[in-house]
């Protein structure tokens, strides 16, 4: 995909604090890129740098090949949806949506149909005369989107656009936003701290950690092939098992003096490792299953500590006899709390991912 928005080594510090360090990434035309990260990771600062509300200390920002680093926000032609929407309380819904058109010198006659079109895009046709405080939170959120889209920006920035909605509304609005963006094939950067939201809306996800880009890729890549422990831990549920790298790249874990207490599982190294290196293996719940503790080879015995029903699957927290806790996704009736079980690798599950064991400090 040809790059539309390019960030080259953007850095920003506030006083002594380094907020962003050498962040580079490219966004393709029509792509929705999610900036994901815990609070304080720099994702909002990065969005504000792109919008032009902050100036980078170093680095360059180009759109469609032209440098916009020094351009003020009002001349970038980007749209933005703010976390608290920032709808102008003294203007009606229609005047809010038309604000950007007026700023670009679009006359009234032309503006009226474009306002209606933008409102229709977010399923709010006919809402022009309403006051901002007369509509619900979800509707305000969509007005904010319509306002940002109405002038036809070349790029849309969304700052935690769903964080003010209750969970039920959040999922529906998320779908509506995504659909509206696809309909106008808008290039968008979407900031969130919620992994589920990131995976649901993003074509690709950029995970930020302490001001640096931790990993950039499609959701499944971040989930199944995390490049670091941080990515593995932040994205999705994770269990960790200590072991070592066996010849042939396999994971050797547990105590091999006892049957049912040691496993030798196929594995993938996330970083360069040598045979015999102590490793921590990342195990996703979906890659594991519960088996009979007696007589199952290549499994680890333990006891179910708790079970949590989650709709299509149930999560079992299993305390292994070798001293680790793993999360296993299995059928609702696979085990009871307190039951003795063993944990095995699913044949079709993704293999454990191995990271060099960190020496305890």
């Amino acid at each position: 995909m040809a790059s539309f928005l390019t960030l080259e080594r953007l850095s920003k510090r506030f006083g002594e604090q380094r907020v962003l360090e050498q962040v580079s990434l490219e966004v393709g035309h029509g792509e929705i890129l999610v900036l994901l990260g815990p609070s304080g990771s720099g994702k909002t600062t990065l969005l504000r740098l792109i919008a032009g509300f902050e100036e980078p200390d170093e680095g360059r920002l180009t759109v469609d090949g032209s440098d916009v680093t020094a351009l003020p926000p009002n001349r970038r032609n980007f749209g933005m949806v703010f976390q608290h929407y920032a709808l102008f309380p003294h203007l009606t819904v229609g005047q809010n949506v038309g604000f950007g058109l007026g700023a670009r010198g679009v006359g009234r006659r032309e503006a009226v149909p474009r306002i209606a079109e933008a409102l229709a895009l977010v399923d709010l046709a006919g809402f022009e005369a309403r006051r901002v405080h007369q509509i619900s939170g979800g509707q305000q959120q969509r007005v904010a989107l319509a306002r940002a889209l109405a002038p036809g920006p070349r790029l849309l920035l969304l700052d935690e656009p769903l964080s003010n909605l209750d969970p039920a509304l959040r999922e529906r609005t998320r779908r509506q936003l995504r659909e509206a963006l696809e309909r106008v094939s808008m290039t968008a950067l979407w900031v969130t701290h919620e992994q589920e939201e990131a995976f649901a809306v993003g074509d690709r996800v950029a995970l930020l950690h302490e001001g640096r880009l931790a990993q950039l890729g499609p959701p499944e890549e971040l989930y199944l092939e995390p490049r670091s422990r941080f990515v593995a831990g932040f994205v999705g549920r994770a269990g960790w098992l200590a072991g070592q790298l066996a010849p042939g790249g396999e994971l050797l874990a547990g105590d091999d003096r006892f049957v049912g207490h040691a496993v030798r599982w196929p594995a993938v190294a996330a970083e360069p490792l040598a045979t015999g290196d102590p490793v921590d293996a990342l195990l996703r719940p979906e890659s594991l299953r519960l088996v009979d503790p007696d007589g199952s080879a290549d499994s680890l015995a333990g006891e179910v500590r708790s079970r949590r029903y989650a709709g299509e699957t149930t999560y079992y927290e299993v305390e292994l006899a070798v001293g680790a806790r793993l999360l296993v996704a299995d059928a609702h009736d696979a085990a009871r709390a307190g039951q003795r079980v063993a944990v095995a690798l699913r044949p079709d599950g993704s293999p454990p991912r191995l990271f060099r064991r960190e020496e305890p400090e």
Partner: protein
Amino acid sequence: MSPAGRRLAGGGVAVVLAWLVGYPLALTVLEALGLPRQPTLEHLAEFARRPDEWQALWRSLWISAASVLLAAALGVPLAFVFARLEFPGRRLLGGLVALPVALPPLVGVIAFLFLFGESGFLSRGVQAALGLAAPPWRLQGAGAILLVHAYSMYVYFYLFTRAALARLDASMEEAAAVLGAGRRRTLARVTLPLLWPALVGAALLTFMTSLASFSAPYIFGGGFRVMTTQIVASKLNGEIAMAQVETVTLAVLAFLGLWAMRRVDPARRVVVGGVRGVAPRRRELKGATARLAATALGWGLALALLLPHLTLLLISFVPPGTWTVETLPPVLDAGNYAALAGCRERLRPVVNSLWMAAAATLGAIALGLLAADLSLKLRGRLGAWLETLLAVPWAVPGTVFAIALASAFSVRAPLAGRFVLVGTAWILPLAYLVRSLPLTGRGALAGLRQMDPALVEAAGSLGAGRWRTLWRVRLPLLRPALLAGGALAFITALGDFVTSIVLYTYDTRPISIEILSSLRLQETGVAAVYGVLLTLIGAAAFLTRGGEEAV
């Protein structure tokens, strides 16, 4: 704007503010010490030698302290009644009760004169009812001053306490109740301590207003001089140096007050901080008797508070020379109004006051907004300076400013930033502008602090430049704050007496000066008409805009 450009603009605004606010005060201090030409402590020594100076100082202090007590005794219970009880007419009365704050002090004073004065409405009534040969009392001296102060300044306690009660978290009192505290114990141990910062704030405000009060001591004081009247008397006697020393003394007292006020502020944040809850619900009065009593009390009170102004209205309809010994005026007509409307010379003060107040208010809004905006954007030392300069004229009594401006702008020295403005049409609008800066500046600061920065960014992201953002987003959002500050500034300037009496010329005489000369000429009806005009304009401005924030 780039940071450097912003600092430059901030520096420029700071220089203008310093020139208008700080410079005249500094010059007054220097000249009181004979600086720079003939340094001398002679004027100070002279001040210290005169017993009447010490007496005026002492009177200023104790009158102010007594005013605080009286105003609190009236204002705090009133605030509780209106914040906590529900009865018919509560909303309307709650607004009316705050009205005296919007009325020019001089108008209140002459209304009192017409009501309680020797030949006042009430005195005559009592005299006739009891068949006395002489008026039952004389409205003069400390008692009269305190009466007027209590009447006009209880509003500070009322407004501060009501605001604090509205902020008070109901769960605080509920917690006290659950822990077994009765109503009285809850009030003493929980509610009042939580209100304490607001009460201290109101007390200081009352104290400083009282310290600066001029109209009441001037009209009712007679031989009872306080610092403000002492200063004006010295100035009129031609003792300029003495007036300057007195001015400096009063200014020092005022700055001590401001300093005390600043120290209270952080405490307020600590006490009120934390999670904001919901204010307690108003108690609906049960039982017909209680409701009737509350309603009657409320309306009676409002009537009592409005009585001086109703008297003013009545007097404005009394033709000259028709009301001599009767209890009630025998003739009422609109002759005084017609006389005023038909005479250019009599309309002139109205026109003067209107244009001078309007010009001063517009200037003060523009300068206040600019300075407030820059002070927030710059932060740091320059920002703090801007904010301080905005606040200073509020702390400094009007008399002090009048003397300072008279000293600074009666000399031609362009290189030193001094021009002859005294005696021209510019000095009064300038004085009003400087005195209005704290009102407009604080309004702008409050409005800017409340404004969500995301709204300005949203305008930018939608393609609006600086001016469009200012015009379409920032100004409309700031409008309530600017109008509230502007309305109060306009009312204050329109009714100003204290600076006008020092700085006016015959051609630029404002309404207040005309009221005074009408009184001297025994034209009470005409004076009342001017008073009614000021009251109406003031009340209109207050009720439409100024009241929004205050109540």
